[in-house]
């Protein structure tokens, strides 16, 4: 058997955790370097896997399989395909840059990096698992450290936000757990043996009533994490309270766990269920897009703006899922990646400003481009990505989602509303996004120099790592989208084949 690359990606942060346990608290720099090295190893291996993945062959690759609890059919089995591989790369990029964004951390450094690495282990685990048991296990591993990270190192109403976030996510995961157990038992009856293997479970024919019920459980369970309106409120509060690196991971990666779960477990296992519930998702996601963007327009705190913008942008991912065709699903996965990078960039920059200025109130800023030209440039690039400017990766994603939804010929509410109408409303979202993003840029960075902020230093040294790496990623994939588009298509194609093979199901509306 060849070198277990995926396990190595998963274990690099675990080894980092073990090493940090033996480093005394006062050796802060050593701790940080250890964390950086551990995540760097994950990043390099992820890039290697990304490049080495055979797109022509498609399907799951880099497989590893070990029996774990044979009596229950639990195996440690991992592998990546065209949907999970971009997510693995995203996670690796965000955590690597996140470590550098936390370089100024001085409070209980050791525990901070321990929990951070634990969190990221869980996220990697979710994306590479081919076994539902491990999928769920890692899912929970990712949620719990978040509570501590926000509760201890957070700001603005941190206890409230941490509790709120954890309760929302745990209630959600309880729904998902019921769904997973239901699938497992149903499949065991059909197959005659117990298994958690995702590929095997996907071959089972679930009857329609069962699909409708279980997909609903997943819609709530994973939808909370996306977050789908009206279950979204944990996210702006959580973003605002969380420390920089946690916000980056949280908005950059954790939200994608929800969308990933919805695609991988929801749509893949239960295509008829997905067809039944798609109209509901489609309507709610427009609320996400328009309502989220409108609210972002009147926020006074930089982090709240970005928090609500995430609610709005994740609405596009949901629209991509709801439209259930190749373009829209490819767009959804692309958006998951691109939004993850973009929002991580935003939080890194806002963290940078907050760390030095000790405030995030937009009205108190103005003219910051005089003191912090690099931060301003990074923020502008993030903003342009956010409003879907061509040349940056988010544009490709949004374009595919819009076109996918636009070309879907299906009516909702007896033809009163079509996917096309919803796509038009979603495209309207980019006008609102342009307004609030550029307003924030204008009010924060442009205008006359304010001497009160002359003590702020521009980003330099390690602080530049997140800005440069994340901006470069957005531009690279924005200019050459087929570097990722073809890969994502290879992952989406089997999914769409399954959706098309499934029977026609009338939507809920």
């Amino acid at each position, binding site marked *: 058997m060849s070198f277990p690359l995926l396990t190595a990606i998963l274990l690099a942060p675990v080894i980092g955790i073990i090493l940090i346990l033996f480093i005394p608290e006062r050796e802060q720099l050593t701790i940080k370097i250890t964390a950086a090295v551990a995540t760097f190893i994950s990043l390099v291996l992820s890039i290697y896997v990304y490049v080495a993945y055979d797109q022509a062959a498609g399907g799951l690759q880099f497989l590893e399989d070990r029996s774990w609890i044979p009596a229950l059919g639990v195996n440690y089995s991992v592998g990546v395909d065209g949907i999970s591989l971009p997510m693995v790369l995203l996670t690796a990029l965000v955590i690597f840059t996140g470590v550098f964004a936390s370089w100024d951390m001085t409070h209980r450094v050791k525990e901070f990096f321990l929990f951070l690495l634990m969190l990221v282990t869980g996220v990697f685990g979710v994306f590479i698992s081919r076994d539902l048991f491990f999928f769920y296990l890692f899912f929970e591993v990712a949620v719990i450290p978040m509570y501590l990270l926000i509760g201890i190192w957070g700001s603005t109403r941190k206890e409230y936000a941490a509790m*709120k976030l954890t*309760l*929302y996510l745990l209630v959600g995961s309880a729904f998902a757990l019921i769904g997973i157990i239901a699938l497992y038992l149903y499949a065991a009856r059909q197959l005659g043996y117990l298994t958690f293997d995702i590929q095997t479970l996907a071959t089972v024919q679930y009857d329609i009533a069962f699909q409708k019920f279980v997909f609903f459980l997943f819609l709530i369970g994973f939808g909370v994490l996306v977050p789908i309106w*009206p279950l979204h*409120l944990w996210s702006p509060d959580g973003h605002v309270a969380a420390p920089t690196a946690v916000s980056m991971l949280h908005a950059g990666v954790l939200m994608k766990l929800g969308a990933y779960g919805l695609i991988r477990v929801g749509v893949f296992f239960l295509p008829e269920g997905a067809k039944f519930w798609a109209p509901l998702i489609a309507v709610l996601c427009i609320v996400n897009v328009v*309502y989220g963007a*409108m*609210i972002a*327009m*009147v*926020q006074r705190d930089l982090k709240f703006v970005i928090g609500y913008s995430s609610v709005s942008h994740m609405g596009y991912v949901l629209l991509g899922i709801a439209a259930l*065709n*190749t*373009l829209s699903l*490819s767009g959804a996965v692309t958006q998951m990646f691109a939004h993850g990078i973009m929002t991580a960039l935003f939080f890194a920059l806002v963290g940078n400003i907050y760390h030095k200025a000790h405030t995030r109130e937009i009205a108190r800023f103005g*003219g910051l*481009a*005089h003191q912090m030209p690099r931060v301003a440039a990074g923020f502008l690039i993030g903003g*342009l990505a956010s*409003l879907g*400017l*061509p*040349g940056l990766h988010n*544009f*490709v994603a949004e374009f*595919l989602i*819009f*076109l*996918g939804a*636009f*070309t879907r010929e299906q009516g909702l509410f007896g033809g009163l509303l079509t996917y096309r109408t919803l*796509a*038009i409303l979603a*495209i*309207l979202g*980019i*006008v609102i996004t*342009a*307004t609030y993003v*550029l*307003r924030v840029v*204008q009010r924060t*960075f*442009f*205008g*006359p*120099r304010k001497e009160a902020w002359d003590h702020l230093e521009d980003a330099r040294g390690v602080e530049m790592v997140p800005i440069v790496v994340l901006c470069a990623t957005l531009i690279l994939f924005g200019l050459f*989208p*087929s570097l990722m*588009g073809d890969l994502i*298509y290879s992952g989406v*194609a089997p999914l769409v084949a399954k959706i098309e093979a499934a029977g026609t199901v009338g939507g809920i509306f």
Partner: protein
Amino acid sequence: MIRYAWLVPLFPALAFPVIAFITRRLRTLSALVGIGAIAASFVLSLGILWETLTSGVTMEKPVEYALSWLALPGAKDWVLKIEAGVLVDPLSAVMLLVVTLVALLVEIYSVGYMHGDPGFSVFFGYLSLFSASMLGLVLANNFFMMFFFWELVGLCSYLLIGFYFHKPEAARASLKAFVVNRVADFGFMLGFFYLFLMFKTFNFRELAEALPHAPHMGLLAVAATLIFAGPIGKSAQFPLHVWLPDAMEGPTPVSALIHAATMVAAGVYLLARAFVLFASIPEVSLLVAYVGGFTALFAATIALTQRDIKRILAYSTMSQLGYMIMAMGVGSMTAGMFHLTTHAIFKALLFLGAGSVIHALHEQDIFRMGGLAKDMKVTTATFVLGALALAGIPPLAGFWSKDEILLAAYSNGYTGLYILGTVVAFLTSFYMFRLIFVAFFGRRRAGLHGHESPKCMTVPLIILATLTVVAGFIGAPFVPHGFSSWVYFGEPHHLEPNYFVMVTSTLVAILGIYLAWLIYGKEVISAEALAQRWRSIHTVLYNKYYIDEAYLWFFRRVVLGLAEAFHWHDRHVVDGIFDGVGDTVRWSGYRLRYLHSGSLPVYALVFFAAVVVFVLWVATPVIGGIR
């Protein structure tokens, strides 16, 4: 040469990162890199135009090649194929030359104008990025690429309007420009989505071939109307024109290049590129013609009362763009593109001349200038030449191209638009010479003295002035094999010179100049008295028909009001419900904990009661009680 057309945008595209990352601290080198790149593009464009005109490349037989940018199977029967492609025909070849020529001269001029500015290098970087995007837009062979670069020129416009970002007005103007254009692009994007829906391609030529087989004419009309939203935004047509006057907050070379000669003309270029679409739906063409004609008049009336030299020119640009759009609407792509070409030259000249004045005086209000002709001979001479061209005095470039438009309207039966166009010609010559008599001649109103600008600024002025004199002849009606046999739609149609149209338009132009001279030159008619007499009209015009105020009201009250309402709803209704659930759980826990009082007798009592209930329940069937 045509094979290397893709290099034309690539040179400035490479100059941008070089300036941004390598030469930023070396100012002279940055300027050299920028100018060198655009000069290379200019030379290549010259070669391309030459080859296009000599090697039999025509509007029907263009040269097209492409790379795949992104390809995804959409469904069983179609593939989403997005290409990065190049389409060279006389239309794009002419446009390439216009853009590279103006960009080159503007960059040379900027060496003098921006001298000593702390953002000198960055300025050249942005100009290079803009040139690259604009040239990419010109060469695009499909709607997707066009949109791609369309947005990028919008970005450059945003960056350059806000170049003096420390000025709050500049920061606001850049935001306004971007958002207004976004509204327009929303329509543009939807428009080509509808086309894609019907024909499953973005490619211009494939669309043109498929167009006669359109499944649904109504849908096609919707698509064309929505696409027209793009030009309304980018070419500052009513009602999305509000951003262009404010865009004058940018440095003057930017106003010349982006907001007069090239980017704002992109809307007209788009109409020319997709001409077959508009030509096939007469109703939409009519809309195009009237929007253009209305804007031409509307903007000209505002220009009558403005005081800021750049804003007068900005409204004049809007008005002239209206002419071009009107030409497209009345069915003469040749006339529209011809006017675009000549206008690019003389409007760039006028803006650069205005820049030369601003550079000398640091003043933009024409009523604080005066007598500049004595201090700035080259600037004055070239500016007057440009104004004469804009006013449409023969034999300057503007005369031939404007006449072509009026003639097209006249001979295609749009008499109303023809009269409107003639009125606008009168207004144009009046407001331009109002500017000239006030600023360049007469007394020094505020005692400001100018000085002639350095060579690198006056030489571009002289070159542009020369072109203003000669450029018109490429399309003059008596020249065989001229502009109309290069750029046309359908068949090259050479309009016969119509002396009635020519003489009328020349007469109204001279009348305009004469009236301006009476009021502002000789001052026999008092401008103040006129303004007093028609005070309400003057106020409305001076305040630009209060359209900005209306939009601002809409944004502040409606949009932000709605946003505040959503925010309140989110925090109080949605969050209220979910927090309410949490609070209920906590409250019941708080109440229920009294059951665990720790008192043994109570526990014993409950225990005993439970046993009794249980025994009764189990024993019920035995006893034969309730059935």
